[in-house]
């Protein structure tokens, strides 16, 4: 097998590629933050009666909350801020499809590249 000789990349091309990677990193990490896609999906189940009992706290728990500087009113939004685990099947299917598709592409494309590497490495000998 003939040995592959990659083209030389000029300085401008290297700088362009660095910029592409930096932009991609920022878009990947910053965009979910900007679009509100990052962070926990929680919501507060508000209670009318804001007492330790109503909040499900026994005397030991209540004494610790107070030691930490909380009252039933200030602790309410912490205690009642809950996850609601309802499985959204379309989203779950999309997530599974994206993940499986990604890994299938990765392994198949990697294998194609890997065969070239092995052929060149071992056919030289």
């Amino acid at each position, binding site marked *: 097998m003939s*040995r*592959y000789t*990659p*083209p030389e*990349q000029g300085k401008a091309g*290297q700088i362009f*590629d*660095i910029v*592409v*990677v*930096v932009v*991609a*990193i920022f*878009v*990947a*990490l*910053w965009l*979910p*933050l900007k679009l509100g*896609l*990052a*962070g*926990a*999906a*929680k919501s507060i189940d508000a209670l009318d009666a804001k007492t330790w009992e109503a909040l*499900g*706290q026994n005397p*030991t728990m209540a004494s*610790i*909350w107070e030691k*930490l500087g909380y009252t039933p009113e200030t*602790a309410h939004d912490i*205690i009642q*801020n809950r*996850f609601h*685990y309802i*499985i*959204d099947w379309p*989203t*779950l299917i*999309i*997530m599974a499809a*994206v*993940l499986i*598709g*990604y890994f299938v*592409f*990765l392994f198949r*494309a*990697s*294998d*194609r*590249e*890997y*065969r070239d*590497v*092995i052929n*060149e*490495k*071992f056919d030289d000998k």
Partner: protein
Amino acid sequence: MAVAAETIITAIHGDRVSLLRVLGPAHVWALGVGIVLVGEFTGWNFSADKGGALAALIVCWVVGLLYTSVAMIDSEVTSTVAAAGGQYAQAKHIVGPLMAFNVALFLVFAYTMLEVSDAILLGDTIVAKAGVEGLTHNSFIAATIVVLAWLNYRGVLMTLNVNFVITAIAYVSIVILFFSVSPWTQGAVLKLNELVTPGNALPYGWIGVIAAFQFGIWYYLGIEGTTQAAEEVRSPARSLPYGTMAGMITLLIAAAMTWYVCASLMPWEYLGITYYPLWDAGKLTGSALLENLLFIATLLAALASANGCINDAARAWFSLGRDRYLPTWFSAVHPKYRTPYRSILFLLPIALAFAFIADLNQAITFSILSGVLQYTFMSINIMMFRKKWPLGTIRRGYTHPFHPLPAIVLFCLCVVTFFAIFLGFGSQLIAMTIFYFLISLWFHFYRYRYVRRGDQFTMPWPKPQGY
């Protein structure tokens, strides 16, 4: 630690100036535990938020199993593929270039976002302790990231010596806290029976336990970073498995002690949202000495972790440049300090930027997502490794037992963790996977043209079976 600063020039890729082989098993332990130990000081407790206090304990042990599998698999592959970049070098030799490119990005993102989380934790802890109105964490975050980057720039030996000392102090503080609260007696200081009751132990039921896997990862995330030092340890075949497995044992003990003390001192709703569970535990004992000790230990754990993360992320980035997966400019080694200084400097502003725009649990989630993608790769990678080079065909520094059980366990636990991330953070997972997919297309169809094919395979192994 008496470490002779001997210089062994490696000739990988024909570099004239190479990384220094100066590290021993203690440094490997310090790198792994140093990165991870901060997880006991913050982050693991968000698993209580997702599933309750008992769920946090269950995932502590089950995720411990996941990481034991990671450590076993990693020790075998890394003791055989001893090159900077760790899992990146493994992927390059076993799966292929595109996978290697992705694995390096997983590493860089996981460690950079972990570094960001550490800096935020450190800044917030100082601000909370100072209690001064108007004081923000920004200057502390910036100082942490810049000073640690400078330390990494100056040399790996000094960096990891510092890590060894501060990690040991932070670890000892957990042990001191544990024995100071009379763990064998309930009622005096610890009140586990009154705080974790049959009614609130699993507030969301078993689905909450599965959801808690996401932050259960934080108990141990980063232990696999020990492999990044593969080109800088004097005896990779001995030091890497020894340091990694010793690190896992250390962390399992610390995680169990941390859960027991924290769950016995604060209600699960508070435990699930606090940024400083161990420092709060110190406060709740009523001892000023313990409170101050845990405050200092929280800062030291964050520093050690950020320090190790800069070390690991820079080496992964450096490896990408060296193989031309990214511009070769990144592959420079400092002529005097022998560190991948351009990679260290390049990642510095990225870490700074995200430290200012993300909050703690968002940064942690970014890091966890990249970590779990990497563990999924590792479970498949070891199967391919054993298939392409069966036992006896190449010299392995360490051979892990019970194959393929650890790989199957790891893969199954990764699937469960993906589902856990879906429960509450699904959109973030989809967004990041789409990013990795798009950047993979860029690499496969454009960037790979600049890569020399056969030169990527640097190990003195026979041709893989099946090729």
